């Protein structure tokens, strides 16, 4: 028992939770923007990979770190656009198109990486984002370590939570996005373009998702590995349901998830000798399934989610 308290009371544990949560915050925000507009984006896993690869490669080729972030967002937006065209004006199956985008984005990223770096034994490294040293705040006892020794990308994620919530609830654009995910004819009858709103939301959401990938190669690590996304995208899709499509709850969900993951990693070092490591590695996936099961009964899906809209067919 005392080990557990020790873990929970250490500032490093909370810092790690926030770090683990960061890519998930990006992912869930991106997914919820798409789903609020009525489109499920299962391209997320591939978009994470593309963001991770593109951001890293841009920096490796000499762009600055923020240049890399931009490149990652553009790459995400590009794959989002493919998904948007297939699912919005063409009205194709969102499930299959999303899987297709994931396969495409993943294989394209791997192929480009392999082609650019045909025979490297160990992945080349870049100078990644470093934890910010904020005067005063970072030096606070406990809180300084727990909250304020993160990289800029983590703060960007937190800022995006606020921005997304504000846009969604306070601006005409956000209201239109909420409406198009509930009843597209409400939007069209008021003279707005259903396709324009949905395509825009998917592209923007996908760009945000890609930042989650970029965080992996430019902040959490400093290199690109095959398989490094490892299901984080799918976890985000589950967390989006858990967060009932609200940015604030998305943050809480991601943090809870990060805390649990950080906790089990520390627990593993304490008691790992008795239990195979894979059991701990399974936990994030199992936890996501449990999160889905818990909220399934009362999940309030956007009414038009998965339903394609064709003009003049109501």
């Amino acid at each position, binding site marked *: 028992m005392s080990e557990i308290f020790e873990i929970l009371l250490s500032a490093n544990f909370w810092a790690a939770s926030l770090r683990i949560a960061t890519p998930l915050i990006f992912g869930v925000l991106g997914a919820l923007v798409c789903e609020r507009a009525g489109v499920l984006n299962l391209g997320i896993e591939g978009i994470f990979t593309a963001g991770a690869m593109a951001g890293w490669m841009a920096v490796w080729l000499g762009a600055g770190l923020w240049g890399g972030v931009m490149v990652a967002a553009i790459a995400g937006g590009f794959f989002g656009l493919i998904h948007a065209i297939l699912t919005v004006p063409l009205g194709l199956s969102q499930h299959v198109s999303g899987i297709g985008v994931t396969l495409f984005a993943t294989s394209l990223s791997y192929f480009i990486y392999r082609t650019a770096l045909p025979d490297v034994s160990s992945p080349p490294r870049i100078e990644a984002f470093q934890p910010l040293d904020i005067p005063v705040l970072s030096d606070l006892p406990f809180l300084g370590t727990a909250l304020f020794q993160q990289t800029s990308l983590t703060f960007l994620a937190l800022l995006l939570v606020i921005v997304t919530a504000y846009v969604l609830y306070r*601006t005409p654009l956000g209201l239109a996005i909420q409406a198009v995910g*509930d009843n597209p*004819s409400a939007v069209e*009858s008021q003279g707005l373009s259903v396709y324009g709103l949905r395509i825009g939301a998917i592209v923007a959401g996908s760009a945000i998702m890609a930042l989650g990938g970029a965080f992996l190669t430019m902040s959490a690590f400093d290199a690109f590995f095959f398989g490094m996304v490892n299901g984080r995208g799918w976890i985000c899709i589950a967390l989006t349901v858990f967060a009932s499509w609200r940015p604030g709850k998305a943050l809480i969900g991601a943090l809870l998830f990060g805390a649990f993951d950080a906790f089990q990693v520390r627990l593993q070092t304490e008691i790992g000798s008795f239990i195979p490591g894979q059991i701990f590695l399974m936990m994030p996936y199992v936890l996501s399934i449990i999160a889905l099961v818990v909220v399934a009964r009362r999940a309030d899906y956007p009414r038009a989610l998965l339903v394609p809209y064709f003009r*003049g067919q109501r």
Partner: protein
Amino acid sequence: METDGSQAVPILKLDGITKRFGALTANGDVSLELHRGEILALLGENGAGKTTLMNILFGHYVADEGKVLVGSNDGDLSALEPGSPNAALVAGIGMVHQHFTLAENLSALDNILLGTETLSALKSARLPARHKLENLMSRSGLTVSLDTRVSQLSVGEKQRVEILKALYRDARVLVLDEPTAVLTPQESDTLFATLKKLAEDGLGIIFISHKLAEVLASSHRIAILRAGRKVADLPSDGCDQRQLAELMVGHEITETVREPNQPGAPLFVLNGIFAGQGRDVLHDVNLELKSGEILGIAGVSGNGQTMLARVISGLETAARGSIQLEGVDLGKASVRQMIDSGLARIPEDRHRDGVVGAMTVSENLAIESIREPENQRFGLLRFTELRERARNLIKSYDIRCQSENSPARLLSGGNIQKIVLARTLETEPKVVLAAQPSRGLDVGATSDVHKRLLAVRARGAGVILISEDLDELLRLSDRIAVIHRGVLSAAEQTEKLDRGTLGLSMAGHSEEDAA
């Protein structure tokens, strides 16, 4: 009624509108004019092209030929950009669709504001909008609670939000598609009073309807569409219902008549049924259907009819209460058991629940009996028998289709309903549950449905007829009960009822209130 300014330039002019869908001409060379302060009724039966015409006006469809002209305030006519709802809105045309176009997850206020602000605005300007709306509401009498989520509003309130959407944009022309379909007679009267007031303030109004009485009572002018063409355009004064009906249908109408009949013993009984949650609920519902009887269930849509149909169909299990068919308890019965014990169901949404569009007519005709020995042996389908039986049903029920192998989705609504009738009635069920059986059908198909239901009654079976169409209920039912907020009233002999009393109970007033 006087039309003011009838000599002046119209505020709206449709000029030679033609729209084809494949081989079907939905609108053929239709021209219309609307003036300031005028209420024009667009009359026609289902499929006559009324909704298509209005969708062209509003930019949902693009006409193949012809154009829409809008009069400006200083009297010039200019062409409206086709295919653009936004252009129609900017030109001052507002439309209230039959199926409301509201986002249920937003407040009434946000729904009205939607699309009126530039999307790049950093903040939604709710406060000035609220002032303008409060002003509009007090002037027109259309009051709604602006901050309530639309999902919490009643049907009548939603309709008011729809009209406010148009007024907020300073509409000069208001189009309403079948506005009374979801209202009680009393609510309809209120609506028409409001429309009259709006017209007096200068608004031009077009309302689409197939109900003759309201068209006569509430319009200045009537335009009649039949098979996509305008067949009449005349002032309302001096018309009568018979004349309108014949213009609408194109021939004299023979109404189906219910022969007097002595109902037999109780057949199907619901006792103290509670079911559902939220809006679609049943609260202590009791019902007794006798053999040889049609029992009508009247009510405004969304008062528990759907749940009642689901419970009787076996799709939903009642939380409490009992269901008995000829004394056999069916309280926990599955759909399968309901069908097997002699209960036939005609679903209210025939496209959603009635047929599998991608499967063939023959497969849809067999879908309820696919596990019967006549259709399968050892789990293997008997194709020859399936097709053979389908061909016979297609003939005896006059289902119009290319062949028994065409996908059901290619059929018209009336023929899809015939598929449902054929497969359910063919087994000679004891009880037929018909939910909105003629909704959206034209006169011919409706009368076919009515004859089939009367035939069921004639051979001694019972029919529960759930309908929102009072004329249909009064014509077919032996007794009528009214459902309001999940409570079903005691059934009364049809002869003792009229539209007024039914309307009051549909609105939830008991007889004591009325007295």
